[in-house]
């Protein structure tokens, strides 16, 4: 991939559809590097369709979004890419619109890839501003644009102020203070090399750096939980093909949402539904059946299911009697039941139960005769896991499942009230960049004593963090140096 960094810095992206779950979502990419970026992340569905950089203006093509940096290049989503070539686009620049599936996880994954490639998150009113600067709006609209920028920035400032109240603010400030102290020590060494204070300041720089990196990493990691507050409580329905996951989703959602068929592997992608359960916005995610499959599309669905599982706030693991369990056999001799087809699933469940408490076992198809021995068998194999029977036909167990969701939400909410949460993807991008700079600084510190480079990298980490905190590095830095150290003639 050969992309001009300066052009990347001028290329922006953002979700053009509002946050939350929808059928499809639109991500807009605009700027001088958009063509190169689109070509890097888009694989046409078949050779019949052009590569992104070969698309004429005002055409679209189906294909896969991939992460060109990852080794496996697993597709993120199947999308439709639309190209508007400069200057005949909304912004007047080369624009690509990515129509992807509406799930938050999908959209975030695509944006993450764009940002990691160097594309910048769009600022307030940025698309409109570019449209204006490129002459796409007439002069009479200029003042409206200025008002728009002022208003958007004002709103954003309010939102940022709100976000910066409470625990996130405390955490970010702690990180910032630690970074300033670190940088002040570095600068002291560089500014007053003959001063005794600088000898002490030079000690333990790397452990100080490591400590701040851990803080930033923890903050960035809290992004997943932070979405709970801004984008809903996530419940994932997992189970083997044809276990009845779509039926459970539909029962909870209250209408037929996913395609329910008796053919195993029908739900080939994750399906999301935003539902109200006990006053809580719950994102229900139905995953593709968990089974090894050679079908590419289905395999993506399976991979997606596994990643959705790890990000879920609650996992509903649906387990139903295997088809070959006939009631006949049970009546005769329970010990003759062959559980080998469930062994693999049992191992996965044991494994998962060690990783998370947010797991509820749902014994499905409770209307079948084989369900009773299944429940008994599950209770004996997994005695610590809560178990709820469920029947899509009789709706039995539905209230218990809904109550379990509400309980889990309350517990999660209480647990998170004390934690600092990153709730905006802009903040997440800032933290990721901060971390990247600090990692580079640590590397330079390890490589040698070129403190000028280490200082430059720590400073750029602070610059990145300043996109959240909004302060001027140089002013605060000099303040910090002179308040902490006794130097000078």
């Amino acid at each position: 991939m050969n992309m001009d960094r300066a052009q990347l810095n001028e290329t922006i992206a953002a979700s053009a559809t509002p946050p939350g779950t929808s059928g499809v979502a639109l991500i807009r990419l605009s700027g001088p590097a958009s063509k190169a970026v689109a070509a890097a992340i888009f694989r046409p569905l078949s050779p019949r369709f052009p590569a992104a950089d070969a698309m004429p203006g005002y055409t679209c093509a189906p294909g896969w979004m991939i992460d060109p940096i990852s080794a496996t290049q697993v597709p993120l989503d199947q999308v439709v890419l639309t190209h508007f070539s400069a200057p005949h686009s909304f912004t007047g620049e080369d624009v690509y619109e990515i129509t992807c599936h509406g799930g938050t996880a999908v959209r975030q994954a695509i944006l993450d890839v764009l940002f990691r490639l160097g594309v910048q998150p769009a600022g307030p009113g940025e698309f409109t501003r570019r449209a204006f600067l490129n002459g796409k709006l007439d002069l009479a609209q200029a003042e409206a644009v200025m008002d728009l920028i002022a208003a958007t920035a004002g709103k954003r400032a309010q939102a940022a102020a709100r976000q910066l109240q409470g625990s996130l603010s405390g955490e970010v400030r702690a990180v910032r203070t630690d970074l300033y102290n670190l940088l002040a020590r570095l600068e002291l060494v560089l500014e007053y090399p003959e001063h005794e204070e600088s000898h002490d300041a030079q000690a333990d720089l790397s452990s100080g750096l490591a400590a701040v990196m851990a803080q930033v990493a923890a903050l960035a990691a809290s992004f997943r939980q932070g979405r709970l507050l801004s984008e809903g409580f996530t419940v994932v329905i997992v189970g083997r093909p044809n276990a009845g996951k779509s039926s459970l989703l539909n029962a909870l959602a209250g209408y037929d949402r996913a395609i329910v068929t008796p053919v195993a592997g029908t739900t080939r992608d994750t399906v999301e539904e935003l539902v109200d359960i006990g006053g809580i916005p719950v994102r229900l995610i139905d995953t593709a059946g968990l089974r090894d499959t050679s079908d590419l599309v289905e395999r993506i669905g399976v991979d997606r299911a596994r990643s959705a599982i790890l990000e879920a706030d609650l996992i509903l693991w649906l387990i139903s009697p295997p088809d070959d369990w006939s009631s006949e056999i049970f009546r005769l001799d329970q010990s003759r039941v062959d559980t080998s087809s469930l062994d693999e699933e049992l191992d996965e469940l044991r494994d998962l139960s060690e990783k998370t408490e947010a797991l509820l076992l749902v014994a499905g198809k409770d209307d079948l005769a084989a369900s009773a021995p299944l429940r008994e068998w599950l209770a004996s194999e997994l005695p610590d896991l809560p178990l709820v029977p469920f029947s899509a036909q009789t709706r039995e167990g539905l209230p218990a499942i809904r109550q379990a969701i509400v309980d889990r939400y309350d517990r999660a909410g209480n647990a998170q009230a004390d934690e600092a949460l990153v709730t905006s993807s802009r903040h997440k991008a800032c933290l990721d960049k901060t971390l990247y700079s600090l990692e580079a600084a640590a590397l330079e510190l390890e490589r040698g004593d070129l403190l000028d480079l280490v200082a430059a990298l720590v400073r750029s980490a602070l610059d990145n963090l300043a996109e959240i905190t909004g302060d001027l590095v140089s002013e605060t830095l000099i303040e910090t140096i002179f308040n902490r150290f006794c130097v000078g003639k």
Partner: protein
Amino acid sequence: MLTIEQALLRPGAYLADAYDIAVIGAGHAGCEAALAGARLGFQTILFAINLDSVGNMPCNPNIGGTAKGQLVREIDALGGEMGRAADKAMIQFRMLNQSRGPAVLSPRAQIDRRKYQSVMKQTLEQTENLDLRQSEVVEILVEPASHDPAEGPGSVLPRVSGVMTRTGAIYPCQKAILTTGTYLEGKIIIGSCQYSGGPDGMFPSIGLSDSLRGLGLDLVRFKTGTPVRLNFRTIDFSQTERQDGDAQVVPFSFEHEEDPVYTQIEQQPCYLTWTTPVTKQEVEVNLHRSPLFSGEIEGVGPRYCPSIEDKFVKFKDKERHQVFIEPMGRDTYEMYLQGMSSSMPEDVQVRMMRSLPGLSHAKIMRSAYAIEYDCLDPTGLRLTLETKAVQGLYSAGQVNGTSGYEEAAAQGLVAGINAVRSLNGQTPVVIDRSQGYIGVLIDDLVTKGTNEPYRMMTARAEYRLVLRQDNADRRLTPLGHELGLVSDARYMAYLAKQARIAAENERFRKTRVAPGEKVNSLLESLGSTPLKPGAGTSLADLLRRPEIHFDDLAPIDPDRPGLSTAERFAVEVDLKYEGYIRLEQERIDRFLRLEHRELAETIDYAAITGLRLEARQKLSRLKPASLGQASRISGVSPADIAVLLVYLDARGAPHA
């Protein structure tokens, strides 16, 4: 506000010679300003209250240091005088921050201050078009604002027409450059003893402040201080730590590179000693007698240059402080006591000084003192250092709220250059923040102002990896040549040097190194990973390894040309830091785009919709020259800048 005609009515007034440029004060700023003006062909007069104080160093006897060393190299690269003069008066050299990276390498020299003064004074005396005059300027004379309707609505600013001295001489001039240092209404403070006085026993400048106020300029009161001077003969150096200069002397001036006259000098040592518990006790017991803490000093002092009483009060837990003993020159026994600046009464000064190891019997030759002085609020200046209130009036140096000889000289040079540009009807010369510390210094001053004497620090520069002492010539000598301050001969030498550096860089990239016993044993001896069989590389890639330096590779690089130390260093830095420098260059490119969007002084910010109130007020008052400068004003937000961008485009202002 006084015109020449009105001034002539005063008793004893007379019309003296006319000049293009009058420079008021012959310190480090004044010398550079006057030399620039005269060398560029304009009749220039340089005033000093006392001609024995020309180019004086009333405080520490050194030039350079972190950030300041970079400034001196930049002054020299532009064709200024400070570097050349310092090289001639150098008595010790140190390159600070060896091994901490090229961006922070900083040359610093101890200077024989009398020698420096005589070198500088003689340079001034020998310069065509330049007259040095002992006299105290007390009035700036102006032509008042014109209200001629033919010149359009509103008034034009008053314009400098001359200066008047205490003895009644009126020198007509077109440009006046204020370089009054710490002389304006100077007040010396030693304990409860206070008197009107300038630095280093000179007379102060009395009355000029009133003239400036009358012109509508805002003045503030700053304070600074200096420690005692001791007699070398009375110091017991056995109780101190001797500090010698570096074996390798690097002259400040690019003209003196590798010249043995300047690299093979006899050096003098400095000495290190420490305060003791007795020193601390003396401060604590006598704190009530310190004018700093009794409220008698109203001026604001610098945080980076605290008095010894400040240090003990502010950092109570620190038991001892470093004190350096530095020679004042080759022909004197006077020693400077760095770290012991004070405004305590004399008896306390004596006891504090004698509490230091090695100084128990030392004799003070000059007392420590604090000095209060008037200076201008630098936000009243343009980036050219011309005042916004009076056309043709420039100011530079400590009177702009800075501290330090190097900061002063840098401003003097810029003010002198811009006075000339204006006389020639040419566009101003502004060095931006990506071109030099000079740019950072001036932009900080006029954009943000300062509430204490401003000292240059490398931490103030955003593009430190690019603003290095070693490449100051690359950054500024082409400009110096274009201006006429750098001679053709020097410029040719500069171009040849850059060509050699570029050729060597290219050769390093192209020369392949095959794995072999000789190569690998060399690499191993340097603690570097040997090359794998079949995995050849280039000289450049080897040099990029942190543990390998240019000279290390000589054994496996028989074809290298003979290059100077500076040239070899440049190749090494260019290759080793290539990635980081490219990243910084990208940041600079983005920075420059806003920097090149000009904002006219006539813009009515109150009428721009979308600007916040605070931004409107600040922009109206400061009248920034560019969008970039506007973005650095505190109280102007990124959203305000976005609004201004749209405003500019709506009016079809040109893109950079």
